[in-house]
């Protein structure tokens, strides 16, 4: 929804120095820092299939080779295939590019699941190579173990005659350490196929096979038709603050959950600044911008806004002095205690929203940015409930800072 509210206009500075929308930032309540997805540590907490929204845990996904079993995609345009029946036999059709499973020579089936997929024929050969390498590895590591293990000279089973059947146990141990190495046959190099042979068993089709289709199923060689592709699983992420390892965002269990078990959006801890009306520029005369500041947190805040000087050339020279205001939070209803002062800077005051008027001198280039720095204190409700027991003064005395850049031109 950031598009409609044009939230790209106001950028907040994250602790890693990058400027981002407030809706993309998170707030760590332990180290009182603003975190973005770049500098926080993002992990996968659940793998799910994006087409049929079916969840699978990490070990199970590894077994299924990170592919969902019952939804398949069209090899031509990577779109979902929908089932159709003809005299109660199933076949699949892609409604975006009308590719059909009949094209790939797969005749209709009675069960709509488990469509054929190319298997890797060299797997058995590769397993033999792997076992052979494992044996080589054991041989390579074996002398190291025995070298650093002190073999007591006098009393060792190697010299004893085979009286108590020790010899067979030692023999078995040596057998395990030095497996008999059956030499694995080299995969013999072969003559290259002539061009004509390779060409005429090439799969004839009116459409050229593109690179994306090949890398989607590398096992389909050029003389075989393209089969439907199994949908790869996608990861759903949870975000943890990298300094204090606390989870910032964790979604509810279940793929389609959009609620959050733990959520620390920066929106609820940092005052939300927005431009209230489009800005009119009278060039090189002081023009005004009306900013609304909303306090969505759960504690009233004392806020000091001070425009920053012109450090970059596209920044705008702002002449309003720093403003000290206190904004009630949206929850407590008694607004009596709030001073209803109205000065030329404070334009209007709603329950938890304040309209501030800044006048600035637009610069020559058509790029106008207004840099503000916020310092605000809260009544300690930001901290974690755990350390609530310590002392809320220490928590509430902590001054929180945030830098903001407002894009005035459109």
């Amino acid at each position, binding site marked *: 929804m950031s598009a409609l509210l044009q939230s790209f206009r106001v950028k907040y500075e994250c602790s890693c120095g990058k400027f981002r929308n407030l809706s993309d930032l998170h707030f760590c309540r332990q180290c009182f820092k603003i975190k973005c997805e*770049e500098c926080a*540590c*993002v*992990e*996968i907490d659940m*793998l799910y299939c994006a087409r049929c929204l*079916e*969840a*699978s*845990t*990490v*070990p*199970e996904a*590894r*077994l299924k080779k*990170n592919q969902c079993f*019952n939804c398949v995609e069209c090899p031509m345009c990577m779109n979902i295939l929908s089932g159709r029946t003809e005299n109660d036999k199933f076949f699949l059709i892609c409604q975006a590019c009308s590719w059909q499973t009949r094209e790939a020579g797969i005749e209709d089936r009675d069960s709509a699941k*488990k469509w054929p997929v190319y*298997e*890797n024929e*060299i*797997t*058995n050969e*590769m*397993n033999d*190579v*792997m076992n*052979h*390498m*494992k044996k080589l*590895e054991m041989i*390579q*590591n074996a002398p190291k173990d025995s070298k650093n293990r002190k073999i007591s000279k006098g009393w060792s089973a190697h010299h004893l005659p085979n009286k108590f059947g020790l010899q067979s146990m030692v023999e078995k141990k040596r057998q395990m350490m030095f497996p008999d190495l059956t030499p694995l046959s*080299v*995969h013999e*190099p*072969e*003559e*290259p*196929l002539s*061009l004509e042979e390779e*060409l005429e068993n*090439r799969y004839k089709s009116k459409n*050229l*096979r*593109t*690179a994306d289709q*090949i*890398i*989607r199923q*590398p*096992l389909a*060689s*050029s*003389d075989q038709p393209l089969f439907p592709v199994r949908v*790869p699983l*996608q*990861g759903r992420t949870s975000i943890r603050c990298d300094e204090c390892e606390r989870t910032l965002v964790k979604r509810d*269990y*279940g793929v389609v959950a959009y609620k959050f078990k733990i959520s620390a959006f920066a929106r609820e801890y940092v005052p939300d600044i927005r431009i209230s009306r489009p800005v009119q520029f009278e060039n090189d005369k002081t023009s005004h911008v009306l900013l609304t500041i909303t306090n969505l947190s759960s504690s009233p805040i004392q806020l000091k806004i001070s425009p920053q000087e012109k450090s970059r050339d596209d920044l705008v020279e702002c002449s309003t002095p720093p403003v000290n205001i206190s904004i009630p939070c949206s929850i407590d209803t008694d607004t009596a205690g709030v001073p209803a002062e109205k000065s030329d800077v404070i334009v209007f005051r709603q329950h938890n929203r304040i309209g501030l008027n800044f006048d600035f001198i637009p610069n020559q280039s058509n790029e106008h940015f207004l840099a503000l720095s916020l310092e605000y204190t809260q009544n300690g409700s930001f901290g974690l409930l755990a350390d609530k027991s310590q002392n809320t003064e220490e928590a509430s005395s902590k001054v929180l800072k945030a830098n903001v850049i407002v894009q005035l031109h459109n």
Partner: protein
Amino acid sequence: MATAQEKLESLRAARRSSSGVSAASILSVSSSTLSQAISSIDNGKSAVIIELGTKFTKLGSAGETTPRAILRTEYINENGVKIDANEIFALNDRKKAAEKPVEYHENIISQFFKFLFLKALAPTDRPFIIVESVFMSIDMRNAITKTVLEKLRAKSIMFMPTHICSTFAFNSSKALVIDIGHSECVAMPVIEGVTMLSEFESAHLISGKIIEQRCRELLKEHGQIDEINGERRGLNDTDFEEIDSNNLIETIAINSICIGKERAQIWKSGKIPEKELLKEHVFAMNGKNLIIPPIVLETPLEIFFDASLNTQSFDKTLPQMLFSIVEKCPIDLRKSLLSNIILIGGVSTICGLKSRIKEELIEICQNAQKKYAEDVRFYQFSKLKNYPLFGAWLGASLLGSLRETVERKSISLQDWKSGKLAEDWTDIIDKNV
């Protein structure tokens, strides 16, 4: 057969008790993939294998024979700009790396890795194996190590050169490995597991990029467009924009073939050979028909073999390169080297390439009166034609299944924090660890 089934049932029962989600469908495991299923269950976290190519990145887990995903080496960053391969690998060449600070490149690499991993593979605390080309620069390796260990919090990281990896799959003791990638071609003999570094040859003119340039020139020269009202005309720039938007040049390059020497001479002399191999291909796009004559599909690879075409650079042609490698080799290897050639890289899946290399090698050896090219043979899997696409990755995956060697040769976060650099294959020679 039963053990995997029980294991999966126990996994699913544990999961079903903790969630109301519908039970996953029964795992139908054909016998050949079953052994991997077992091997991937019991050794817990298997290693993650990545091969960073300039065009495609292959990633998957150890012990498996096909990569989990082959993705293009590009991604779209947060403000919608597409970052492509030569920005990700900017650290590799000094000129481009000097323009921007190192953190900028490290940031790009970390964004690219996050884009790769947060889609599918859970990277946390799993060992990483990165298949790198022999000439990856030192600060590129450190940037990758920093990203993988600190940002993705992997257990450990280890680098493997591509040429050794590709010999594991064939269990061959003696091989001449030619890696024709998208940006360059590097050929090196690997004898008894030792990369003969002194006899390496590399050429920038033998690569996928050059084929695509050749296809574009040939298309500009010979391509024709059928307007709707029937008149045929050559191609102009607006057509090329449409061609680029449909990524057509890459499709032509992949579907091109490598023809015999005498047929190439006929094409070169301008005549059309009578035996027709490929028909004319028609590609229709918004109202116009683009006619792709067979010459565009048959002759882009001539630049590998015909010295007269690459006038600007001094690189050798492919057969001359192989011949000079054999010449540099010690005397006892020369006889048998050309009968154990391994071709890897995306370009070597083009059909007809192997037979043309053999024909050219025989011709060169006759001119030089040398008897190296008696029987030119290639290591290949007849049942898996797209094997060269992920040849090096497969070797690394085989090595990744050996748990102790992986632990011994890779470095972990603590070593990285204590200043130890990722092990380089030159350290092995210097310190013969």
